[in-house]
């Protein structure tokens, strides 16, 4: 059991700075997910924690000790790879016991640990099979078993579900969460899938361009993004962004997004935004906060009419797409209320969830 800390960690490949001085503290037993688009440095960070990449500068601590110069085997970590990385010539049992054999554990202890991990992962009957006789999901379980038997200080997962089909991915996601709840161990998990990040993590680390954008719990990240990148990256479909201008409206404020649409700012935020009056800003609003007018006590000033371009029925809800000042905006409406494409629909913007973003600094204001 151990905490992991990264202090000013930098990784440079030739002249490209893949990781730019990141700082991160992961307490004991926490499940942290590093998430971001391809090339954001998340996998490199994980590989540096594993000892598979050397640091250009900075320090990595595991259990309070600097491990910069320690080889992977001396860091007491276990890693699950995207393509499972099972040894193809060994059975599932041999795969799981390989690390223990190298560490000279007794046969009885190895048997006990492998059986225990197999029970947790429900793969007891697969132990004598070789990887080629296993399905993708079963292989991933064996790969997880190989990590569990070692009882390491830290679990590292490098996009472990990317090779699985959509249904299995959801199933294995739950499985990983269940295993973490059973085997309490500090876990660092890398993914580019924000849904995986949100569902699995105690805390999510959003990375972009080699730097950390925000570290927060999934709920915080969703409701209180700090930057435009985080706001746009977390949530599916992505948050809508519209150019807007803040205007004084009596005692309150309004954001004007087009000639026809101007929406009131909640009174609680008037003081906070006072200094921004007259400025060009970006308004961020999630599709789930643009709906058909629902509650009877709603503020009718938040309603507006648009002509729908595209309508996508999803079953439980319907996505409606429309243009505002040349920008494509998405709303999520009740299937029964959706108008057809080319038709006019009355929509409601839930301004309690609005974000105003500085277009220069990309910070959420």
């Amino acid at each position, binding site marked *: 059991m151990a905490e992991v800390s990264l202090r000013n960690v930098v990784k440079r490949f030739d002249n490209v700075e893949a990781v730019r001085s990141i700082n991160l503290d992961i307490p004991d037993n926490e499940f942290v997910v590093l998430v971001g688009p391809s090339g954001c440095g998340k996998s490199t960070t994980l590989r540096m924690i594993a000892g598979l990449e050397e640091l250009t500068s900075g320090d990595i601590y595991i259990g309070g000790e600097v491990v910069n110069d320690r080889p992977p085997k001396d860091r007491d970590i276990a890693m699950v790879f995207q393509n499972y990385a*099972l040894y193809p010539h060994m059975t599932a049992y041999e795969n799981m016991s390989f690390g223990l054999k190298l560490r000279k554990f007794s046969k009885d202890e190895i048997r006990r640990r492998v059986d225990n991990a197999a029970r947790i992962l429900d793969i007891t009957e697969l132990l004598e099979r070789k990887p080629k006789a296993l399905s993708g999901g079963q292989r991933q379980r064996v790969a997880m078993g190989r990590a569990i038997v070692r009882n390491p200080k830290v679990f590292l997962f490098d996009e472990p579900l990317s090779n699985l089909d959509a249904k299995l991915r959801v199933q294995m996601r739950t499985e990983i969460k269940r295993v973490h709840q059973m085997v309490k161990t500090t876990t660092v998990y890398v993914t580019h899938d924000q849904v995986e990040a949100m569902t699995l993590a105690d805390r999510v680390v959003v990375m972009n361009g080699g730097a950390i954008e925000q570290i927060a719990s999934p709920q915080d990240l969703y409701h209180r993004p700090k930057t435009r990148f985080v706001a746009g990256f977390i949530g599916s479909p992505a948050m809508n962004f519209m150019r807007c201008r803040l205007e004084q409206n009596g005692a309150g404020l309004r954001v004007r997004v087009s000639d026809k649409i101007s929406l009131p700012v909640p009174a609680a935020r008037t003081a906070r935004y006072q200094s921004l009056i007259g400025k060009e800003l970006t308004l961020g609003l999630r599709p789930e906060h643009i709906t058909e007018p629902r509650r009877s006590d709603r503020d009718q000033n938040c309603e507006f009419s648009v002509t729908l371009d595209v309508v996508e029925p999803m079953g439980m809800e319907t996505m409606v797409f429309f243009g505002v000042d040349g920008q494509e905006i998405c709303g999520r409406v009740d299937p029964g209320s959706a108008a057809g494409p080319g038709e006019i629909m009355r929509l409601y913007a839930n301004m309690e969830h609005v974000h105003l973003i500085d277009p220069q600094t990309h910070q959420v204001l």
Partner: protein
Amino acid sequence: MSTAAVAARSAGLGLGLKGSLSRNRRWAMIASYFFLVLFAIFFLIPPYYMIVTAFKSDAEVAHMATNPWIIADGVTLDQFKILLTQTDFLRFFRNTAIVTLCVVAITMVVSVLAAFSLGRMRFWGSSILATGIFLTYLVPDTLLFIPLFQIVKAFGLLNSYWGMVLVYPTLTVPFCTWIMIGYFQSIPKELDEAALIDGAGHMQMLTKIFIPVALPGIIAAMIFAFTVSWAAFVYPMAFLYSADQQVLTVGTVTSLIRGDVYKWGMLMAGALLAAAPPLVIYAFLMDYYIAGLTAGATKG
């Protein structure tokens, strides 16, 4: 149009399409078989001639009027008996076996280690070195034997089959290393990383992970080294000159051809016996050999 009529029409279309496809396929098969049979005959004539001649008596071989393609005077094992009892054939066979075993062992140790380091351990100049190794294979042995003569002489190994153990690897190591580099490179890098995290050192990684996983490639390389060593002609011809040190290829020819007298029966019997070990090994390991060569070729 009624539903039945539509169904009948589409069924007819389907049949027509199927017919043309199978006709095409039939012609392709006929052409394939024709050429395969042609090649098989072409390549099987020499071994057939060898077998037929090996089981003939000297008298029948020498008789100009008999048909050389069939055994007319009955099968005899005389050629084999004389070859095995009255010539140095068994000694040649033993020498060749010793040389081949040593060469295969040396080749495998050197090329597996070289390929592992060149293919998997990134270091400065590794790719240039890998190409360099392959380039050495392109130098023909007919050019190399002159400088090698000096080297073998310097080691005091002229006219000793141990000299062959020294020089054959110059032919086998580059190619085998090249095959193995391709094979090792085709193994995903996560496998070494998983082994590193599991606690394996480089040597354990090689012996416990890479060699078992790359076994088809290793067997392909082994067969190649075996074939080169078993069938080498130029080097023993240049470096060995007494019968007790001679190997099969040169020994059989030099001892069974005296001036312009060719002992055809025994030559063929000798060739047949000499070809037996490679045949047996190929038969057992052919699948591995093909898998090894293609994997190296496409993924390397």
